[in-house]
Each structure stands twice: as C-alpha cells, then as structure tokens.
C-alpha cells in the first residue's frame, strides 16, 4: 500500500497565504490530496485555491467537523515551534515541516512534544512525502504533472536527506519500471523528526514495499543508526544507499559546510568514508554512481 499517507488522508497548510505555500497548495490539490483548510493568523475568511483560511488550527478542525490527519508547516523559523505545537495540541498526528533554519533546540522541543502525543514529524527543511498516484503532502516532486513524470506507483521506498534528490532518484526508479511505494524527503538538518531507522518499521510493515533506497550525506550518525536497526531487526528489505559529498573528506575541506546544515564535517565519525564502511558492514549496499541505483535494486529484489 503505502506508508503514513493514503487516499483518505486529510491535512491543512499552516502559513497557507505565503508565496511558496500557495504554490504547494495548488500542486497538492492538483495531485488529488485532500487539503481541508489553511491557517494564517489574521487572515480568516480568505481562500487559497478554494481552501478556506482560518486564524487558528482549532477553527480549521471545527470547520472540518472531524479530526484532521496532518499539517504542512511553512511558517517563518521563529514561529514554527508554536505552530507545530498548536497543530499537535489540536489532535494532528502527522507534521511536515518545510521551514529551514530552525534552531535545533526548537526542533528537539517539537519532537519531544510530538512523541508525548503520538504524533510524527517529517523534516524540518524538507519537501514532504508522496505516495505516487494517490497523495502528496508538501512540495515534493513539484507541480502535479511533473510529479506524475517522476513518480509512478511501485515497489521501492525512498528516503532522502535532500528534497531534490528524492525526486531525482525516484525518477530513475520510475524510468527503470520499478516505481516508488512512498518517497519521503526527511530533511537536511542535524536533528530531524524522523530518521531512516525511525521510518523503517513503516516500510517493513508495508506489503507493497520490496526494497529501500536512501540518499545520504556526511554529518551526524543517522546512517549508523540505520545500520544498527537493520542488523538488530533482521529486516526483509534490501537497502541500497547513495552517499553524496565524498569530496568533503579531503583534508582541505575540513570544517567547511556545504549544502545542508547537517553536513558540517566535524570528526572522523561523520565522514563519508566512515559511514560507507558502517553501512556496508550491515549489508547495506552503497553504490558509487547515482545511476547504478535501479540496477542494483533490481538485482537485490531478485535475490
């Protein structure tokens, strides 16, 4: 089937009147997603592509007349924490945080609050998630017609620290006839709501998913956590990984940060080569070239 989303998933967009949020709303509606409201404080009574705008999440829930499943949060960094906690306090269980540059103390607070309430956060600094042909939540894949080009339903679960690369990789899986079960842009920050290992149980339980592809970068120990998870849980799913940013291992690049905030290379543990070693040890194949992914996935599925 899919993970986290299905054809009945309802969600709101917090910060819906912002420029990027208006685009994202259009894209999701065109793709068939059920957006049941938007929130921008002080803008109650407006509409964005036919979606009613409210001052508070509570008003959006009351208007919908039933619990709302999710929220895409696109408010400025200084307001994100409050917006996310507001959503969770109003019964929302799936949060996609698009906003970049949120201090990690705030992220950690939101995650802890979500854990206490049985809610799950994807992001921050992410493009959301997509179940091909069914629903997309966030800017992932872009406009509906572009998303349709890159994403066809299939057997591979995709998780990526880069929003753009989620689509680049999914597009190659689609072109190879493998398709995608669910693709998740997990976010590029040092602390994120859902890591690879934390999403693995969902994919493991999803019958449609037969293999996993991850896109990863230097920084942090999320890959080590995935390697541990795979070993401890004897997962049925073959995992193929692609590591970008190997050039950062060079001596002259030490202490530099490229791309995402999570990719500051601080020590040996974080380096690309160290991570590749850990993943390989857990039986996770790390491909050298991005265009090798579909073939390697095919071979792994066939056993």
């Amino acid at each position, binding site marked *: 089937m899919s993970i986290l989303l299905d054809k009945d998933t309802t969600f709101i967009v917090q910060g819906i009147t912002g420029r990027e949020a208006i685009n994202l709303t259009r894209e999701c509606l065109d793709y068939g997603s059920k957006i049941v409201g938007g929130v921008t404080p002080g803008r109650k009574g407006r509409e964005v592509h036919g979606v009613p705008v409210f001052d508070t999440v509570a008003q959006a829930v009351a208007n919908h007349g039933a619990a709302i499943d999710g929220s895409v949060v696109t408010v400025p960094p200084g307001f994100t924490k409050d917006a996310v906690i507001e959503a969770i306090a109003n019964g929302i269980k799936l949060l996609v945080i698009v906003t970049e540059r949120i201090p*990690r103390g705030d992220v950690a607070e939101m995650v802890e609050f979500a854990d206490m309430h049985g809610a799950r956060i994807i992001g921050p600094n992410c493009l959301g998630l997509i179940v091909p042909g069914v629903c997309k939540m966030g800017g992932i894949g872009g406009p509906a017609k572009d998303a349709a080009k890159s994403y066809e339903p299939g057997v591979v679960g995709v998780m*990526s620290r880069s929003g753009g690369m989620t689509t680049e990789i999914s*597009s190659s899986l689609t072109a190879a006839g493998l398709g995608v079960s669910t693709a998740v842009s997990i976010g590029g920050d040092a602390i994120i709501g859902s890591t690879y290992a934390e999403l693995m149980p969902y994919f493991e339980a999803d019958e449609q998913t037969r293999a996993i592809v991850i896109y990863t970068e230097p920084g*942090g120990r999320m890959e080590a956590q995935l390697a541990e998870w795979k070993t401890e849980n004897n997962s049925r799913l073959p995992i193929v990984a692609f590591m*970008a940013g190997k050039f950062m291992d060079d001596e002259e690049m030490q202490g530099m940060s490229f791309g995402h905030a999570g990719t500051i290379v601080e020590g040996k543990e974080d380096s690309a080569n160290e991570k590749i070693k850990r993943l390989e040890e857990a039986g996770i194949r790390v491909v050298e070239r*991005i*265009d090798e992914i579909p073939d390697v996935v095919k071979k792994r599925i066939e056993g």
Partner: protein
Amino acid sequence: MRFYEYEARKIVELAGIPVTKYGFCQTADEARKVAEDIGGPTVIKSQVLTGGRMKAGGVQFADTPEEAAEHAANILELEINGLKPVGVLVDPKAEIKQEYYAGVVWDGTAKKPLMLFSDMGGIDIEQVAEEHPDHVGRGHISNLLPVGDFEAKQVIAATGVTGSQLNRATPVLAKLARLFRDNDMLLAEINPLAELTDGSFVALDAHMEMEDEAVGRQKKLLRRELRIAEEDTRDSYEPSQFEKNVKAIDAADHRGVIQGKDHGFKGNLGLVIGAGGGSLTLTDAVRSQGGKPANYSEIGGNPSVAKACGLAKEVLQKDGVEKIAVMMSIVSNTRVDIVARGVIKACLDLDKDPAETIAIFRIPGAWEDEGSKILDHYGVEYCDRTVSLWDAAGRAVAKIQGFSA
C-alpha cells in the same frame, strides 16, 4: 558561533557558576594591572579560536606582575595555527585539589542534550571516555521540562563521586545544562572544573559554541553582555573574494538562492549547479571521473536572470577556469530557462562564446522546453533527465580534457 575563553567564562559566570577573578587584557600594561589586583602567582592565556594553546606556548605562568606583563607582551604577538590572539586572559594560579570535567552536548540520535561529567578533568573527554568509561557519567535532559538538580546529581554520582564534592558539583552541572538550553548552545564545557584546596568549585576554563541559526534571538547575550559586534561572525575561515562576491549577489535580490564556495578547490571546470544534494552529488561525480572542479555552487528556488548571470560570471572569472558545466537535478521549481538566459548572458558579457564555454547544460526542471530553445539558438550542448547526473558530469569532464589537451 564560537566564543573566546574569556567570553565563555563570562557566560558561565552569568549562569551563576563560580569562576576565578580573571581579567581580559589587550596590552601588557593592562595585564600588569590585573596581576597586581590578583596579588599572587598568575596564569597568562592566549585568547585565540584554536586548540593547542599550551603546546604552542600560549599559556604561561608568572610569579610577579612584571613577569605577567612580559608574558602578555610575548603571547599577544604569538600566532597559533596562523591566528593572532585578540588578547590575553590573566587568571590567578589556582591551588587545585582535583580537576573534573562538566559538559553538555547534543545527542542527535536521542534528539536531546546530553550531560557529561567526569572526575578525570583537565584532559580531552573523548580520551577519558575511551580509556576509562566508568569515569564518565552521562544523562539526557528533556527539551520541555525544567532541568532538575537531581538529574545532574545522578550523572555525577555515576562516576563514584560522593560527599561534599557531589553536593558542590551538582549545581554547577545543572546550571551548565540550563545555560546550554537557554542560550542555544551546541557545546558547553567546563574543563577543568576545579576543586580548590579550600573545597570550593570553580570553572578554570570554559568552551562554548552557539548555533548560528539562533544568533538572531540571542542578541541580549551577544551584544549587551558580551559586546560582540554584529559583523564579528567568527567564521572558521576567511571567505575568499569569490565567496564574498557570490554572497553579495545573492543578498542583493530576494528571488532564489545562490551559493558559491571555492575554499579547497583549484580546478579548471567551473560549476553552476542545482541545489543542495544535487550539488554534492555532481561535485563528487566530476571528481570521480577525473575532473577538477574550480568551485562548489548551488542554485535553488527561482532566481532572476541577473542572479544566475552573476553567479556564472563569478565562476567564469575565477583563475584557471576554462569552461563551465551547468547541471540541474530534477528540481521542479527552478525555471531552467531563466538559468539558461543568465548563464548565456554571463558568457556574452565576458566576450566568450557560449557554445565553447559551456561544456554541458543538463536541463531538467520547470520551463525546460523554453530553456532548450535558448540553448539551441546559441549552439550549447545540453541533455535532459534521461542523461544521469553521473553521465552529464562525465561529458563535461571529457569536453574539458579534450580542450586542455
């Protein structure tokens, strides 16, 4: 954002943790006066944002104010790892009974701050953790609930510390944990935390780092308490002219985002490439196939023609650049026709033939049909999404190697 030791000590002091009566000095004369006030043996420490001060001779001991002034004069002139100190710290030479370590760091896996304590202070905590794991206590703190003293006490007691030492160290670690959270720190360390011969605990050295994303909301501490100027960003290295120029072009126009870095790059192939993960992937792909990138770059969002042109011009004008490769990943919202216009304009403005100068243009993205038309018009070689990032990078490398040969 990194802090000098004298600032880190001030942060510790503001949190109510005892420190010695130290003074920050920028001249030998000031150092003499502080040493006179202290009235006993002193330690003179270089204030520089790099490690290995002791080894480099940046820490000296003095018995008299005259000696303190002399050491200060020398240390003020002493470069450590290529950096000149901003001053010296003059500190009373403490009568130490025992050295401890107290620290708080982020645990990204648990997504919570982690308190660390050791009764083997004064040395690198990582070394202690490896060689004497039973001498390191650990404990996570909540991001939501107040930090209780008992939590710090548990961490310290786990190392076997008891008696009055436990009771004196507990508030220090608890206050350090609170200041870590309140001030958006990435790292807060007191090492050594010293137990003096009179039984009191003082922070003898402190190391702090604040998250850059939080600098905007920590103005009270940074500007008012520490008097750090806004433009003093404490970058870990001096940005190059290329980096400064790209930053200025980016800041001049709010549409789209461009980034350029060339620290550590010395190649002949300029890169104008699409955002984040795609840029990391492409930089690797160029290098793995024998190419020599002249820079790293990112284009994201929806930049104006002027912005795309500005980035391309900066890349083209870098020393040693022979050709540029323009490669976009399937980032749906960046209009590639605008990127194409910008890059071609950059070539023309610099009297270069776009067909010769642009090694390859990988075009997938919004408005790609429009983009193709422009590239056709100028005879620029381009490819679509059916050519992988790896192959596009390979074609660029092959072209420039043919050109160089």
